[in-house]
């Protein structure tokens, strides 16, 4: 369903949050849908259920998920807007990274090479 990168310096719970938001952005999960259970996601990603629980707790705090009396977590009505807003933040972060790379003297060709390689790994 979602993918995480064990070699990335990004905390696993942040990767899980981003992954779930990505599913909503891509339209695979819609407001009103039930989110995967903590157990199934932990088994699928081979991570500690506590880590998934933390991601869910934070997503609930942000209003992205809502829980219905003992019946799991659901994608909230606000989730779609939030995921789209999140995308704007990602775009901005990417722009900052590119500007930083240019400042550090990385030529455009090298940047495109990085983009190409990442695309191959994650089409």
């Amino acid at each position, binding site marked *: 369903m979602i993918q995480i990168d064990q070699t990335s*310096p990004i905390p696993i719970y942040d990767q899980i949050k981003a992954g779930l938001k990505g599913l909503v952005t891509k339209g695979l999960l819609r407001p009103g849908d039930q989110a995967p259970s903590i157990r199934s996601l932990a088994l699928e990603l*081979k991570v500690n259920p506590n880590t998934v629980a933390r991601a869910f707790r934070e997503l609930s705090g942000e209003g992205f998920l809502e829980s219905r009396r003992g019946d799991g977590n659901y994608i909230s009505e606000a989730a779609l807007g939030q995921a789209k807003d999140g995308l704007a933040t990602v775009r901005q972060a990417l722009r900052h990274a590119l500007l930083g790379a240019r400042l550090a003297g990385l030529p455009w060709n090298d940047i495109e090479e990085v983009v190409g390689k990442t695309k191959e790994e994650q089409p």
Partner: protein
Amino acid sequence: MNPAIVLTDVRRSFGSKAVLRGVTASALPGKVIGLLGRNGEGKTTLFKILLDMLAADSGSVQVLGQSPDGTGSLRQSVGYVPERPAFHGFMTVGEVLAFRSSLFKGWHAGKADKLVQDLGLDPATPIRGASKGTLGKVAWVCAAAHDPSVFLLDEPTSGLDALVREDVLNHLIGELHDGFKTLLIANHRMEELAGVLDEVWLLQGGVIRSVHPVETLRTQACRLTGRLKEGAVLPAGLPVVSLRTDGPVLELVVFERSLADMLAASGSFESLERAPLALGESLKYLLRLSEGGRHD
């Protein structure tokens, strides 16, 4: 919250060889801890002391508030997977489980049956001639069926093929999901467990040399590349691994941001570049740290 495991200045020698020289550490309930150390550092000795299978020469040990007393009663609340599981060769898998069930007050037949099914075991399989994978799975059922709240896992996946390792990992994740379990795991393939670990204890020279939250390793460990200023030297005894000592360029692995920041601010370097380090690499370099791969 009282720690589930407390070790205070635990020492143990075999003849003139001091293996544990004052192990002090504690694990909070619910934590998953990786015990990292090279072969012969005493991981198995430590497990056996925690299990009341071997007495410490001195120091104190507590597991769930209980101290080993030589009777082995502490094992009722501990699940143990030994490095090399061994069962009576004349029994079948089902007979081994029936025998074990008589040893544990809290043995849960329903849980044992479910594990047998989930792991794809056949109770009629004879132990003699059984594959390593089968023995490894039986060891898991034996460790988990009495529903212990502390698990001690000594190389629980060694010699198992990729599919069995995945079964075992899934089972472990299920255990973590269903209850408040404390796990201490020694594993030569620690990176395979990276997703479930909360912290890593580095056992070296008979002591727990350092404790590393995995979140810190994941987000902060980095490789520093820099050129020392003319006449500058790196202070001795820093917890870093030197990858390169020839020539003017230094390459160091540091495991915490604060140390990288300190080095950057020290003014000893012409320039210092930082690159993030994958968790698997960090775990490998921690072993180099224990090898004495320090810069002095």
